[in-house]
């Protein structure tokens, strides 16, 4: 009888051991970059984890973390992340990599943003020219960064005229709208490079350190419920901050251009 129990336990245990599934909520801009297609197979090979990605906006990603429906979150909005950890939803915040935001606009660049002296200045030029501008408007990391630039230029989004279009959509959809309207749009470089429908748009301004876009990994607090795989989240975090990940991330290019810069520090 005892032998039977031990065998049964071993079989069940191995079944559990095989099913290492982890749920990670990521932002649409991360998924649009295409980096996940490089990282996921490596994660499977190195850690034997089936990483299930839920690709949603930053707001929704943090909400899923709050509800305990995912094991960890990867987003790029420091203020929201700090609130998340402070409220006890996440155990801590670990920086992984950054890319930058860029200003995209019509090739003709009517607001002359190419000659702007800073990101805030570029935005101010768009506002004074009242050139068409498309905003994500969806409370995402990109959207919050955009709002930050407007306020650093001393401009109040609520008072903008109809030239400012808040579409409430993901990066790809918003880029489509901008292409259709021949408008300016604030995007992350990765999504821009990966975007297939550029038509009359081009990159008009970039390079200001204020356009720094930091991605961070936040494990969800396992005390929320018994199903959270914090063990897997920790394994993944170690991997994401390892030299192996550094190679993959730094080496990821689109049309010969690297997208992300790995900047995790050892702990």
């Amino acid at each position, binding site marked *: 009888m005892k032998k039977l129990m031990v065998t049964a336990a071993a079989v069940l245990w191995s079944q559990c051991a095989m099913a290492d599934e982890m749920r990670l909520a990521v932002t649409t801009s991360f998924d649009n970059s295409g980096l996940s297609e490089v990282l996921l197979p490596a994660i499977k090979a190195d850690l034997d984890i089936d990483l299930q*990605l839920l*690709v949603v906006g930053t707001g929704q990603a943090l909400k899923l973390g709050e509800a*305990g429906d995912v094991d960890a979150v990867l987003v790029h909005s420091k203020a929201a992340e700090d609130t998340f950890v402070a409220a006890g939803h996440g155990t801590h915040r670990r920086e992984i990599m950054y890319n930058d935001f860029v200003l995209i606009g019509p090739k003709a660049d009517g607001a002359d943003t190419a000659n702007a002296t800073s990101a805030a200045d570029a935005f101010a030029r768009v506002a004074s020219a009242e050139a068409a501008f498309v905003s994500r408007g969806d409370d995402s990391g990109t959207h919050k960064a955009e709002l930050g630039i407007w306020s650093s230029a001393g401009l109040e989004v609520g008072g903008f005229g109809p030239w400012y279009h808040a579409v409430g959509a993901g990066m*790809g959809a918003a880029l*489509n709208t901008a292409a259709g309207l021949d408008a300016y749009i604030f995007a992350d470089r990765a999504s821009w490079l990966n975007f*297939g*429908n550029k038509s009359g748009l081009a990159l008009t301004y970039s390079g200001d350190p204020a356009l720094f876009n930091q991605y961070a990994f936040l494990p969800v607090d396992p005390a929320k419920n018994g*199903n959270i795989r914090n063990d897997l989240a920790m394994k993944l975090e170690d991997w994401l901050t390892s030299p192996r990940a550094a190679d993959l991330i730094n080496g990821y290019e689109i049309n010969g251009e690297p997208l992300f810069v790995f900047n995790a520090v050892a702990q």
Partner: protein
Amino acid sequence: MIDILEGLKAAFWLVVSFDAELWEISLRSLRVTLTALVIASLIAIPLGTYLAVQRFRYRRFIISLINALMGLPPVVIGLIVYILLSRSGPFGVLNLLFTPTAMIIAQVIIITPVIASIAHQAMRELWAEYHDLLISLNTTKWQRIVTLIRDGRRNLLTAALAGFGRAIGEVGAIMIVGGNIDHVTRVLTTAIALETGKGDFALALGLGFVLIGIAIVVNLAIHTLSRTEREGRW
């Protein structure tokens, strides 16, 4: 215009090359929708029939309620199901969120009112025809329901196909409760939404044409199997 042609081309190549991913998401779409259809029909058809034959106090209210529920935006239903199935919600222990089962649940809730409403309408007409005869023959309530369902099966099939159409093209609810996770809960409609968001219109359209094609094939298959045209009583 070019996008539509590109879309048709994309659809053609996807199908002809037996693209593995396409097969996977198409089969998953069919599996989720057909399962939801069977479950919803098992609820809706007896319900619609019962409402046609039995008079009771709140009957009119329930019929109006069912008709009104048809107008509920599927996204709202998806949100409600998400809240219920979330780990922080009442049914979180079932661990159903972000699985095809959650998608089936959401779709059942969405299409049951549609099927029930059409079924009820068809059964009401048939009951008006059979009413005197079945009462005269001293049939039990159960015998009446069985007779109506049997003799009205063509119209009930239409009701079921209406439910199928609603479900196969649905994207809002299953996006929320399924999460559109690659290889787990991604289906044709959510894949189309994803590709559209990425700006890959040609692929999105291609998938869309495949979806339309599947819907047509299913409808044709069911009509052929039930020989609705031949018996002349279509």
